[in-house]
C-alpha cells in the first residue's frame, strides 16, 4: 500500500491537502440524514433509527461519547437542550460512534449509566460499525447535526462557543439554531466549529 493510501489521503493529493483519516465527506447543508434507517441499540434497551427518531419540527442528531473531556464538558448542556426541545416537537438522538476496544468507557453499560446520570429523555445509541458517523462525515465528539421539518441539514457543528465555562457562553449556536428552525426561520450561523476528540472509528 503506498504512502498516500496508508495515510488515508486521496492518491496524488499528499502534497496538496491531507487527510481526515477515516472520516467521510462532511454532510453538506440541505442534505438529508444518511443511513437514516440503520437500527442502533439504545441505552433504553430498544433499537432505534434516525428515521424513527424524527420529529415533526425537526431532528437533532448529536455524535457524542462518554470518555472525551469535551463531550463531558458539554454533556449536561446536551441533556438539557435535548430534553427541552424533544418536548417542543423535535426528535432527538445521541449517537456514540466510538470503538469501545479503543475506549472502554464508551461501552453500552457505561453509556446506560451515563444516560441515567444525565437524565436523558431521548435515546443514546451505539453506532455499531461507526459507519453512521462515516456517512455523516463526522470527525469528532461532540458534533451536532440539526435537520429541519423537511429533513434537510440546516445546522452543523458545535453546541456553543465555550466548552470550559457554560456561564461564559456568548454564542449558544445550537439553541439559536433550534429556535430558528422552530420558528421556520433561517439558522443564523449554520456551520460552526469547536474542539473535540477525534472519533475512534471501528475498523
Amino acid at each position: 500500500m503506498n504512502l498516500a493510501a496508508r495515510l488515508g489521503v486521496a492518491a496524488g493529493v499528499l502534497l496538496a491537502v491531507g487527510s481526515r483519516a477515516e472520516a467521510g465527506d462532511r454532510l453538506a447543508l440541505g442534505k438529508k440524514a444518511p443511513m437514516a434507517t440503520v437500527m442502533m441499540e439504545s441505552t433504553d434497551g430498544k433499537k432505534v433509527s434516525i428515521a424513527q427518531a424524527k420529529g415533526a419540527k425537526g431532528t437533532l442528531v448529536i455524535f457524542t461519547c462518554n470518555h472525551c473531556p469535551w463531550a463531558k464538558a458539554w454533556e449536561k448542556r446536551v441533556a438539557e437542550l435535548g430534553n427541552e426541545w424533544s418536548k417542543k416537537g423535535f426528535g432527538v438522538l445521541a449517537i456514540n460512534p466510538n470503538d469501545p476496544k479503543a475506549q472502554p468507557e464508551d461501552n453500552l453499560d457505561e453509556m446506560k449509566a451515563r444516560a441515567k446520570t444525565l437524565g436523558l429523555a431521548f435515546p443514546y445509541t451505539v453506532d455499531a460499525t461507526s459507519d453512521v458517523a462515516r456517512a455523516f462525515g463526522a470527525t469528532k465528539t461532540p458534533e451536532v447535526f440539526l435537520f429541519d421539518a423537511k429533513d434537510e441539514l440546516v445546522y452543523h457543528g458545535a453546541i456553543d462557543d465555550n466548552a470550559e465555562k457554560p456561564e461564559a457562553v456568548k454564542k449558544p449556536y445550537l439553541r439559536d439554531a433550534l429556535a430558528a428552525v422552530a420558528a421556520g426561520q433561517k439558522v443564523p450561523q449554520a456551520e460552526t466549529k469547536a474542539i473535540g476528540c477525534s472519533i475512534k472509528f471501528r475498523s
Partner: protein
Amino acid sequence: MLLPLAVIVACSACASSTPDVEAPDRPGPVAKSSSVAAAMAPGADPLGAELVDIEAADLRMILQRPSAKAVLVNVWATWCEPCVAEMPAVLQVSREYRPRGVETVLISSDFSTQRTAAREFLRESGVDFTTYFKTGDEMAFIEAVSPEWSGALPATFVFGPEGQLQFYKEGQIGYGDLKEVLELMLSEEGSR
C-alpha cells in the same frame, strides 16, 4: 545540566500511553514525575521553554516561517489521550528534522484550568523550545490554523515555507508516517 536531564530520564516512560489503555478520567496524564517537577524552582523553566498564550490573530505570524523548509504543527491537550500518546513521536521527528529546516509549532488546546498541567507535561516531555497555549475565540482559532481542520484532536499539519497547507491528519499519527510526510516534503522542496 544534570537536573533537566534527570527530569527527561525519569519521565521517558511517562508520556507514552497506548491507545488501548483506558483513558484517564482526570486531567493531566502523568502523576509520577510531578514531584520532580515540583522540586524545581518555581518560575524558572530549566529547559528555557516558554508556554505562550496566543489567539487566532497571532497564528499568521506563528505559522509563517519564511526561513523554514516546512512547519510542523501539532495541536494537543493533556486531556486528549492519543495526543499524549503521539507526543514522543512528534518530538522525535521534530528533533531529527530541525537541522533540515523543519520548524515545529506545538499548540495546547487545554482548558485554562489545565495550563499548569500542560506546562508540566511539556517539561516532562523534554520540550526545549517555545510552545503555545490557545486562548480566545475557539472557532476563529480553528479557522486560523486551517479552514480544512474540523477541530478534532489530535491534529497534525505540515505547512510549506509560504504557509501553504501541504498535509494534515486528524487523529493519532505515528513516527513512521510523520517521517515519510516530511521526507516527501523535503525532497519536493529540494527538487524545485
